[in-house]
């Protein structure tokens, strides 16, 4: 059975191409302009789909958190409050642009754009279906996490540029978080890489056609889940934000559209982290009866639900506790997971592919 998502994408691509053809004939534009405009149109279309999904995710998060608190959460705007996020977005768009005195103006304005655009790039490296991927390369896993590591560096610069004690403290806390999660993150991915002997997301997903890696290495999956929560700076590991301690951390001086961009970046990261978990441990597009991007999206949203669930349940550790958890618990456990992988790989290799 063919993938219905591929059919839909083909229809969309056909529509875009058709519209552009008519437009070019109508306006009499030169031919060399066609390819860039086509690529821009396709990118914008898929970006729009991503943004719509993120609006859904934010709605889901608000709704689930409300339910866990025995509240109803958003109810008024649109059916079951679905358009509340769009209303909030419009509110952010029309807010006044406030800029702190004596701040580094260039860095202050560049940071939201840089972080939002960097956070969205890794989404292009993940194959969503057997025929749906933007970029396939032999080292996509390495590139994926290398790009994500750029963000705390920019956060450090942002916090320094903001000329505010809260943003500076928050930025240094983000740096602290980076050094505590980076090693267990790499070690937990290493288990998957060792088992498939590949650095390619596509090959990793292909290898899980018979059995998912969450079954073969549950410890690695558990560590990756916790570490991705740390990387997302989401509760319970929202130490760089830490409301009640340092306002909203390194984002303290930002409001309006700039805050909206940070907010979007946070959810882009949420999206790609759960996509990475799905690709590495949950078998990607594999599912019963047929292989489809539908399964990928479904699993991704289940991972997001689990992350939201954890977010509501646990409280935030102190920064020193975070480092202690990371260095005395997560790193030894990750090494244990590596040992386990080395032991079982000869036996499971015939099952893979």
């Amino acid at each position, binding site marked *: 059975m063919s993938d219905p998502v591929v059919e839909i994408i083909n229809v969309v691509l056909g529509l875009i191409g058709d519209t552009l053809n008519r437009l070019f004939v109508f306006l009499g534009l030169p031919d060399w302009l066609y390819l860039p405009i086509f690529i821009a149109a396709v990118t914008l279309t898929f970006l729009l789909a991503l943004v719509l999904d993120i609006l859904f995710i934010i709605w889901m998060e608000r709704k*689930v958190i409300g339910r866990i*608190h025995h*509240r*109803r959460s958003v109810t008024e705007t649109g059916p079951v409050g679905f358009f509340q996020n769009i209303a909030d977005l419009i509110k952010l768009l029309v807010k006044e642009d406030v800029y702190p005195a004596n701040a580094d103006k260039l860095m202050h304005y560049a940071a939201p754009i840089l972080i939002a655009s960097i956070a969205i790039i890794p989404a292009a490296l993940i194959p969503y279906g057997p025929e749906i991927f933007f970029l396939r390369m032999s080292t996509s896993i390495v590139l994926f996490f290398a790009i994500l590591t750029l963000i705390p560096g920019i956060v450090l610069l942002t916090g320094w540029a903001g000329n505010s004690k809260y943003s500076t403290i928050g930025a240094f806390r983000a740096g602290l978080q980076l050094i505590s999660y980076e090693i267990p993150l790499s070690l937990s991915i290493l288990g998957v890489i060792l088992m498939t002997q590949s650095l390619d997301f596509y090959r990793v997903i292909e290898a899980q056609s018979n059995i998912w890696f969450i079954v073969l290495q549950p410890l690695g999956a558990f560590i990756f889940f916790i570490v991705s929560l740390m990387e997302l700076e989401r509760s319970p590991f929202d130490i760089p934000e830490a409301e009640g301690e340092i306002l909203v951390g390194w984002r303290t001086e930002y409001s309006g559209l700039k805050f909206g961009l940070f907010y979007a970046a946070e959810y882009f990261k949420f999206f790609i982290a759960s996509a990475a978990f799905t690709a590495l441990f949950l078998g990607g597009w594999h599912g019963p009866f047929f292989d489809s991007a539908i399964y990928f999206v479904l699993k991704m949203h289940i991972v997001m639900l689990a992350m939201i*669930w954890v977010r*509501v349940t646990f409280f935030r550790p102190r920064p020193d506790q975070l480092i202690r958890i990371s260095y005395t618990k997560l790193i030894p456990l990750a090494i244990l997971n590596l040992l386990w992988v080395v032991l079982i790989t000869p036996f499971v290799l015939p099952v893979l592919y």
Partner: protein
Amino acid sequence: MVSIVKKIKSFILPMRVTGKYMVTKPFTVMYPRERAVVKERWRGLHALYFDKCIGCGLCRMACPNKCIDYIYPEGLDPRDKKQQRFRRPAIDWGHCIFCGLCVEACPTGAIHHTPQYKVYATSDSRLDLIKTPYEIAVEEDKKKTYNDELLKIRELMQTDLLEVAAGGEWEEIIRKLREKWRDLWYMKLDGKLDNKTWDEKAREIEKVVLDIIKQISLP
């Protein structure tokens, strides 16, 4: 080993609690659209078992806001102590704080709360919030509605609820009018006035009082 099991439990237990909350119904009631959930001991609007009431006067004594006073049925004389048991409480919901002390004081359980939680007025008249015992009676044969406000005023002229409702500078004026009205009433009860003249003279006073009440009516 035990401590590891304990630690794993300490992670699973809160997850189980929040997971349970996730699937249970929310506590919030979407009030104007949904009916509010009224508990058993809710102190709602009052109702009166007309035949259970013995006219003892305890509810008026218990009322901290002085919003209960008594109405005698037609032809009975309030000066005669033996006829006090026929009087029934009228209540001003505009001044009532729904403390429930009158219900606690009632020895026979005649006055009681209903689950009804909305104080309603059918017009913009302040008079609508003052209820005569016939309006809050439970028994169908005692129930009475007033089409004409003057009829209701005639019943309420026996009570001090009107002057309390008017308040301020009007209080004294209404009290004086009521004293005049009561003299006429007693004269009628003593047989010094025939029904027709009593009706005309009382109606004049009642019209003035109604005008005052209309002035202080709800905005």
